[in-house]
C-alpha cells in the first residue's frame, strides 16, 4: 500500500470519527459552535480529500463516504453494548461488595460463635476437673472413715451436717456445760 493511500484513508476515517464524536457530543449538549466545527471538518475534509487524493472517480468517492458513514452505526452499537456491559459490570461490582460485606458479617458472627463454643468447652472441662477432684476427695474421706471403724457417713449431702444444723445443736451443748459447772461448784463446797 502506498503511503499516500494510507494517509488518505486514515484522514477520512479519523475525520469522520472526530465528526461522529463531536456530533454525538452536540446531541448530548455540546454547544452549537463546536457542532459547526464538526460539520466543517467532515464537509471540507471529505471534499478536499476526494478532490486531491486518488479517490477521484465517483464510485470511489461514494465508497469512501458510505464506508465512513457506516462507521457511525457500529460505533453507536458498540457504545451501547459497552455501556450496557459497563452498567452490568457496575451492578455486579456493587452486588459483589454487598456479598463481600455479608460474608464478612457472617464470618465475624461465626468467629464469635466459635469463640463462645470454645468458652463453653473450657467451662465444661473446668467442671469436669472439679467433679473429678471432688470425687477423689469423697473417696479419700470414705477411706479414712472406714479406717477408724465407724460407719462411713452416707456419701450424700444430707449425711453431712450443714452449718445451719450445727448451729442448731449448739444450745444443747451449752446446756450440758452448765450441768458440769454446777457439779464442780458442789465439789468445792
Amino acid at each position, binding site marked *: 500500500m502506498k503511503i499516500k493511500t494510507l494517509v488518505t484513508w486514515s*484522514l477520512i476515517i479519523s475525520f469522520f470519527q472526530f465528526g461522529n464524536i*463531536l456530533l454525538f457530543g452536540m446531541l448530548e449538549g455540546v454547544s452549537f459552535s463546536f457542532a459547526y466545527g464538526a460539520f466543517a471538518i467532515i464537509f471540507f475534509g471529505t471534499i478536499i480529500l476526494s478532490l486531491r487524493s486518488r479517490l477521484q472517480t465517483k464510485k470511489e468517492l461514494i465508497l469512501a463516504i458510505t464506508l465512513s458513514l457506516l462507521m457511525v452505526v457500529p460505533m453507536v452499537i458498540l457504545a451501547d453494548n459497552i455501556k450496557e456491559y*459497563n452498567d452490568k459490570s457496575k451492578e455486579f461490582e456493587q452486588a459483589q461488595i454487598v456479598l463481600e460485606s455479608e460474608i464478612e458479617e457472617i464470618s465475624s458472627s461465626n468467629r464469635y460463635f466459635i469463640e463462645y463454643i470454645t468458652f463453653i468447652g473450657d467451662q465444661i472441662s473446668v467442671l469436669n476437673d472439679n467433679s473429678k477432684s471432688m470425687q477423689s476427695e469423697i473417696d479419700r474421706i470414705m477411706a479414712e472413715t472406714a479406717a477408724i471403724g465407724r460407719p462411713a457417713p452416707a456419701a450424700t449431702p444430707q449425711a453431712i451436717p450443714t452449718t445451719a444444723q450445727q448451729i442448731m445443736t449448739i444450745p444443747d451443748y451449752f446446756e450440758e456445760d452448765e450441768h458440769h459447772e454446777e457439779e464442780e461448784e458442789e465439789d468445792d463446797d
Partner: protein
Amino acid sequence: MIDKATAGWGMIALACLIPVILLFALGPAAVDLDRYANFTHVLGQVSGLIGMTLFSITFVLSSRIKAIEDIFGGLDKVYRVHAMTGGLALVLLLFHPLFLVMKFIPQDMKLAAIYLLPSGFWAVDMGMIALAGMILLLVLTFYSRMRYDRWKISHTFLGLVFLFAVLHVFLVRGNASRDEIFTGYYLYASFVSLIGAAGLTYTLIMKSRLVGQAMYRIKSIDRKEDGICDLIITPVYKPITFLAGQFIFLRFYNRQTGRESHPFSIASGSDSKEIRIIIKNLGDFTSNLGGLKVGDRLGVEGPYGRFNSLGKKEDQVWIAAGIGVTPFIGMAEDVHHRKTKGKVDMFYTVSDTKDLISLDFLKKVQKDTPNFTLIPWVTKEKGRLTVDAMMRQINGVLEKDFFICGPDRFKESIKEQLISKGILKKNIFSEEFSFR
C-alpha cells in the same frame, strides 16, 4: 546478510519500539489491559509515542546528511523514507486523541467531545494546535499541486508544529493526564526533542554554513520548442566531483526563478568540468526558467544519488521514458569515453518522435561503441513499451542489471513486469524524481 536500507528501517523501528517497551516495563499501562478503558488509553499512548518518535526522525531524514544517504542507497530513497515516516507519523498522531477519548464514549459522549475541543489545558491545547498544523501542512504536501518553492516554505512550518508537539509532550504528563506514563519519560521526551531539533537546526541553519555550495555560472542556454531548456553550466571557482547519473540541487540567483534550490539530474559524463542540465517545463517552477540568461550565477549543492553504473554488472539494460533520459545521457558519455566492456542496451521511450532528446548524441555513441545499442521506442508508432517487447530484442536478461528512469507509474509498471519475469529486485535500479 542484511542490507543497509533494511538496517536503516530496523533502526527506525527500534527507536519507535523503545518508548513502547518502557511504557509496558516501567509504566502502569500494562495492568488490566483486558478492561476496555485501559486498553484504549494504552492504545492512545502507544500511538502518540510512536507517532512523535517518527515525527522527530523525519527532520533528520530531510537533512541530506551523506551518512543517511549511504544507509538508504541514495537521497531519493531517503526522501521516500522521509515521506513514509512523515505519513505514518500523521496517521498515528491522528488516532492518538481518538483512542484516548474512546474510553469516555460508553459513559459519556459529551465528555468525549469536550476532550477533543480546546479546553484551557495548555498541555492538551498545544497538542491540538500541533495536530491541526500537521494535518494542514501534510495535506498540502500529499494533495496540493502548489508551486515547489511555495510548498517548500510551507513545509518549513512543520518545525513550528514540532515545537508545539514537543511542548505538549513535556507538559502533558503533569498538567493533563495526571498519571505516570513511565519512569524515564522525560528522558525519552528530551531525546525525541533533541533528535528533531538537531535535524531541523542543521537543515535550516547549519547546513548552508557547513556544506556550502559550489558557485557556477550559465555558459549556454538552448531553448527548444517543446519546452525543453538545455543548460551548460561552468564553475566560477572549483568544480564539484560527481558520477554520471547523479543529481544536484541548483539555486538560481535570478529574481524570476526565486532562490529556492531544486533537484536536477546531471546529463554529463563523470567528473566533467562543465555540467549539462536538461530541464522540461512541467508547469511549476520550471515554467519560470524563461528569465534565465547566459552569465547568471547559480549555486550547486551535491552531488547526491546512487544511480550510476559503477560497481554493477557489466551487461546492463537502460530504460528511459521522456525527460527520464537525462541521467542516461551522462552514463552514455561515460560508455563512449571509457569504452567499457559490458553490453549496454538502452530503450528510450517517448510518445512522439519530436520528444526524443539528444538523439544525435546517443546515435553517435552507438556508432562509435559496438557494445552500446540504442532502441528508440515511440509509443505512437509501436504502442506501450513492455518487458515482453524488450525481451524480444535482448538475450540473457537474468544476467543483466536494469536501470529505469521516468514517470512513477512507468517505473512501477516496468519493475513489476521485470520481477514477474524472474529478475531479482536487487538487480533493478531506479531514480525517484519527486521529492515532495
